[in-house]
């Protein structure tokens, strides 16, 4: 297990370095002069020289790159151009809101998807299965930037049951969590269905039934338990999609998280903050994938050997 863990950790280092390099180069992809783009056309030469010095753009590229990597290593990603607040602090302030939303969405997805997937698998090929499969495909096809406003129209505007935006009470969390969780629920339901169908074909399920276990017990205690590994893996791997979805969901519901901060910084051309948000989301995603792999390796010894 230790060898597997070390090897997996070592494999992550070049990926993280690649991510940091790509995020570093983003600011240099700005067409024309990035400093001019950040300050606008009315900026004086003095303002531009001052910002160029502050961002280190007057130094050679390799020095800037080394400084950026050092900054990433020491969690010093510069300061926001708009608020002068350190980027890491601005992100840290918003992080709890994003994690609250992301984990609530995953909870919503799990609660909807697992029963749906099991029902579809047990009644595979019947109308129940077709209905569940179509529902899941609908969940994948309906974009969250439509589902969110649609639910706001129904539950906030028409019925007046839930607040349309902001964060504070549990009621504020309901619509954003469902909006963000629905596509994940759809993917998870499909995975659960496929995984449970595969397990139901195994002889140990037949053996359990032969020993007198009820159908429900054979499905839930035997087949479903064994199909949990791929389901948990998908849940872990989908965390990235949830984080990207959070950018849109937070924008729709004015949820004060990192995703909304990213979109706000883009509109203000606050590139250090944009870089910080992108880096944080990508690194969290890589970390979550690593964790999923490690947990998978821990649960299934075959993965460690491979």
């Amino acid at each position: 297990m230790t060898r597997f863990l070390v090897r997996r950790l070592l494999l992550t280092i070049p990926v993280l370095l690649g991510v940091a390099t790509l995020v570093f180069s983003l600011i240099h992809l700005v067409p024309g002069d990035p400093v001019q783009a950040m300050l606008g056309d009315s900026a004086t030469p003095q303002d531009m020289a001052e910002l160029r010095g502050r961002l280190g753009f007057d130094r050679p590229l390799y020095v800037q790159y080394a400084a950026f990597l050092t900054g990433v290593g020491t969690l010093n990603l510069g300061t926001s151009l708009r608020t002068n607040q350190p980027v890491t602090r601005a992100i840290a302030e918003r992080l709890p809101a994003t994690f609250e939303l992301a984990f609530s969405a995953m909870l919503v997805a799990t609660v909807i998807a697992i029963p749906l997937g099991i029902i579809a698998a047990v009644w595979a090929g019947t109308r129940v299965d077709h209905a569940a499969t179509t529902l899941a495909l609908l969940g994948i096809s309906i974009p969250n930037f439509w589902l969110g406003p649609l639910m706001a129209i129904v539950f906030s505007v028409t019925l007046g049951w839930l607040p349309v935006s902001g964060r504070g009470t549990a009621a504020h969390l309901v619509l954003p969590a469902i909006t963000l969780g629905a596509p994940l629920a759809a993917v998870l339901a499909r995975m659960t269905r496929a995984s449970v169908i595969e397990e139901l074909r195994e002889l140990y399920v037949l053996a359990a039934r032969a020993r007198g276990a009820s159908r429900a017990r054979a499905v839930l205690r035997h087949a479903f338990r064994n199909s949990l590994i791929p389901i948990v893996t998908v849940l872990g791997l989908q965390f990235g999609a949830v984080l990207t979805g959070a950018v849109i969901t937070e924008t729709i519901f004015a949820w004060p998280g990192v995703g909304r901060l990213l979109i706000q910084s883009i509109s203000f051309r606050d590139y250090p903050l944009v870089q910080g948000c992108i880096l944080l989301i990508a690194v969290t995603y890589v970390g979550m994938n690593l964790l999923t792999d490690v947990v998978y390796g821990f649960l299934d010894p075959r993965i460690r050997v491979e």
Partner: protein
Amino acid sequence: MLRAGAAIVLLTALAAILGPMLTRFDPAAQDLALRLAGPSLAHPFGLDELGRDILARVLAGARISLIVGLTVVSVSASVGTLLGAMAGYFGGAIDEVISRMVDVLLAFPGLLLAIALVAVLGPSLGHVLFALTLIGWVGYARLVRGQVLRAREFEYVQAARAAGARTPRILWTHVVPTALPAVVVQATLGMAGAIIGEAALSFLGLGVQPPTPSWGTMLNGGRAHLLDAPHLTIFPGLAIALLVLGLNFLGDGLRDATDPKSH
């Protein structure tokens, strides 16, 4: 599922092509006196915040969506297939370079890299196409690399090599075709992804810019009128969901038809 998907996609393509014949209104023409008016006989989808006919704009938006889907899928599938085939067939340093590039690009979840790229390059349809293609080719490359690694060991491929066939010929006529069914399935689902991607970027104000009628831009415009004119949100969203559902049906149907395990 396959037929339903094909029918939806075909109908959308027809609507995009015949759009101007299906409505007598110009998608850019404004009638400010009727701004935000709800659906009526004359305007079945109602009018938007500038008094423009939403049906005409949804039909025009279908063109943008299909252009985005087709462009992103054709370029990223070609590039991804070529690079994946090279990585799988040659192995060694070529495989290392391509695979590391794939690893780094896959380290960015979904649309995040596209959001980042369009944020720095500036909002435009061209930049959206570039960003979606840059994140799109990776999936094809990984898929084709895996298929080619398997196909490389097939006896008929080794026989072709022994008979003196040159590498490009072996790749093109013997190896790549084995990966094509999987690429076609991925392309169908990838088209749905590209269409959602463009709409998401436009919804965030980073994609197609007004007054060009993209479904995402229309949804973005509708956000300010959720209370007084929900039809601004309902119809463009319905169009996206329907086309994406059609493509997902088609992709799933094609996968079932080409995957022997599903029979």
